[in-house]
C-alpha cells in the first residue's frame, strides 16, 4: 500500500506504569496500562514531541492503518503524516488512549488484578486531571521533559488546557480547538440523557455486563444518536439530508421514513458495536467534572496565572455545543495574564464536528502554527 503522505502501517503499543496514581475520586490505582502510538522520530534534543489528546469517542490511533486491508485510517489522519499540517517528518507525534478508555488502556473492561474479573461497575470515575497525570508518566517514560505542544479538540482541548495549568514547565504550546473552559448546563444535560439511555438499558446490569455476554447496545446507540445530532448543525443536516425520504411515497408505518433517521440509526449501530458503554459514561463524566475554576471559586484568569505556554485557540461558527463564545472566555483569561495567544474563528457549517474536517483554512492555520513552533525552538 502506498498511500500519499500517510504514516503507513502502524502498531499500537502498551505502556505499563508501575507508579501509583491517586485519582481525583480518591481511589488509588497501584498500576495501570496506557495504549499509545507514536509517529515520526523524537529528535536528539527531545524537543519535537506533540501530544494529541482525544475527544469523547476517540482513541490513541491517530493516523495510519494497522494493516494494508484496514478499512479506515486513524481518526486524525487528515492532519497527521509526512508533509501534512502536523508533519511527522519534523514532529514526534504521540497518541494515547485515556485511562478508562476501551481501546487498550486500563478501563472498565480490563481485568481488575484484585478480583481477577473485569472492573465493570467498580472502575472508578476518572477526570481530565487523572488523564493528564497519567499522560505525564508516559511522556517521561518516552524520555521527553518538555512537550513542544499538546493538541486537542473538544474534550481533547480541555486536556491541553489542563496540561498548561498542571505542568507549566513541561508544555511550550497548547493548541485548543472547539473547546470550553467548562461545560454549560445544557451540555451536562445532553450528557445526562446519554447516560440515562445507557444505564436504563436492561442489559447494562449496573455496568457489570461483560461476564453476562451482553452489552447495553440499545442504550449506547440512543446515546450516540443524541450526541451525533448535537455535534452537527441544523444547517449541515439540512444540506445533507433535508427532508429526503427513503421511498418516493410516505409509508405511514413505524419504519424509518426519512434519510436522517437511517443515517442516525446506522451511526448508532456502528458505535454500539465498537464502543464500550462503561467507557462512554466515564468520558461524559470527565467532561462534566472539568472546571479549572472549581465551581467559580477562582476566576479563570487567576487559574491561568502560572501558565507559561503559548496558545492557539480555534473555534467554529456553527458549533453550538462548544460555541465560539466559550473559546473567547479562554482567550480573555489568557489575555488577562498577558499570555501569548492567537485566536481564529473559522466559518464552518459542520457544527462541533468541524474540528475533524479538512477545511483548507483550518489546516492552513494549524500548519502555520506548527511551523512557528519549529522556528521558535
Amino acid at each position: 500500500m502506498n498511500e500519499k503522505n500517510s504514516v503507513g502501517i502502524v502498531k499500537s503499543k502498551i505502556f505499563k506504569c508501575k507508579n501509583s496514581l491517586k485519582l481525583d475520586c480518591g481511589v488509588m490505582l497501584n498500576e495501570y496500562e496506557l495504549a499509545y502510538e507514536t509517529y515520526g522520530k523524537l529528535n536528539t534534543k527531545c524537543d519535537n514531541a506533540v501530544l494529541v489528546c482525544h475527544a469523547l469517542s476517540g482513541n490513541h490511533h491517530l493516523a495510519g492503518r494497522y494493516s494494508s486491508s484496514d478499512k479506515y485510517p486513524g481518526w486524525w489522519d487528515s492532519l497527521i503524516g509526512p508533509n501534512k499540517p502536523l508533519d511527522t517528518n519534523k514532529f514526534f507525534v504521540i497518541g494515547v488512549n485515556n485511562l478508562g478508555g476501551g481501546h487498550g488502556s486500563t478501563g472498565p473492561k480490563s481485568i481488575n488484578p484484585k478480583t481477577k474479573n473485569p472492573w465493570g461497575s467498580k472502575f472508578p470515575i476518572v477526570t481530565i486531571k487523572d488523564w493528564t497525570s497519567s499522560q505525564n508518566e508516559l511522556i517521561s517514560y518516552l524520555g521527553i521533559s518538555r512537550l513542544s505542544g499538546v493538541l486537542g479538540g473538544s474534550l481533547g482541548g480541555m486536556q491541553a488546557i489542563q496540561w498548561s495549568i498542571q505542568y507549566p514547565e513541561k508544555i511550550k504550546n497548547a493548541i485548543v480547538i472547539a473547546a470550553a473552559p467548562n461545560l454549560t448546563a445544557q451540555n451536562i444535560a445532553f450528557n445526562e440523557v446519554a447516560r440515562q439511555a445507557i444505564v436504563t438499558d436492561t442489559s447494562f446490569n449496573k455496568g457489570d455486563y461483560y461476564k453476562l455476554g451482553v452489552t447495553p447496545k440499545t442504550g449506547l446507540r440512543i446515546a450516540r444518536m443524541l450526541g451525533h445530532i448535537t455535534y452537527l448543525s441544523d444547517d449541515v443536516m439540512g444540506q445533507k439530508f433535508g427532508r429526503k425520504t427513503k421511498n418516493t411515497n410516505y409509508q405511514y408505518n413505524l419504519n424509518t421514513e426519512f434519510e436522517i433517521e437511517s443515517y442516525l440509526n446506522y451511526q448508532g449501530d456502528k458505535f454500539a458495536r465498537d464502543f464500550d458503554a462503561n467507557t462512554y459514561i466515564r468520558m461524559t463524566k470527565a467532561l462534566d467534572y472539568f472546571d479549572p475554576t472549581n465551581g467559580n471559586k477562582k476566576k479563570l484568569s487567576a487559574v491561568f496565572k502560572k501558565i507559561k505556554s503559548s496558545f492557539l485557540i480555534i473555534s467554529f461558527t456553527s458549533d453550538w455545543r462548544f460555541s465560539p463564545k466559550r473559546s473567547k472566555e479562554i482567550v480573555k483569561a489568557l489575555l488577562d495574564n498577558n499570555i501569548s495567544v492567537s485566536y481564529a474563528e473559522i466559518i464552518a457549517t459542520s457544527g462541533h464536528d468541524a474540528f475533524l474536517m479538512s477545511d483548507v483554512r483550518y489546516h492552513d492555520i494549524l500548519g502555520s502554527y506548527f511551523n512557528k513552533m519549529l522556528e521558535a525552538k
Partner: protein
Amino acid sequence: MSITKKLSRYDFSIISDWVPSQSKVLDLGCNDGELLNYLKVKRNTTGFGVEKNDLNWLRALKNNIDVIQIDIESGLSEFETNSFDVVILSKTIQSMQNTEVVIKEMLRIGKQVIVTFPNFGYWKNRLQILSGKMPTSEELPYAWSDTPNIHLCTIEDFDNFCKKCRFKITDRKILTDRKSVKIFPNMFGALALYKLVSK
C-alpha cells in the same frame, strides 16, 4: 504600491515616536502585523493584534504576531480596562460602523490611543469631487462601488467629533508625501494622525 509602502512606513515612524519604549500595544485591524513588528523592533514593544479578515489574520500569524480574530465593533470585552499602554487604530476608522463606540472602547482599554485616517478634505480629493468623481488615491485606493470605507471624514470633522465626544487630543500630525503639513492642514494634508486620551 511602493509609494503606499513608503508612505505607510513614514506614518509608522510617527506612530513609533508616540509609543513609549517597552510598552504594551494593541493594534486594532492589524492587517499582516507590519506595524506591530515595526514597533517591536523600534520601541521594544509587546502586544497583540486584532484582525477580522481571514487572509490578513493568517499573514499576521505567520509574521509572529499574536493575533485575535474578533469583530472590533461587536465589542472588545476580551480586553480588560487599562490593560494596554497604547491602543492603535491605523487607517481603519473610516470603515467602522459606530466610530464613537469603538474609540470609547479603545480609551477604556488603553492609557493612550492613536488613530490615523486618510483626510477626505485633502485638496486632491476635493478636486476629484469638483470634477464630478468620487476620489481615489494612494490613501483611498478603492472605487466607490467596492470600498469598505463608509465613514470618511476630514480633519475638521474629526476635530469636531473629538470635541463633541470629549476625547482629549494630546498630539496631532498631518502628513503629505512624508512631509509634515502645517499650513491649512485640512486642505493640504493627505493623512491625519491623532493621539488621544479620555478626559
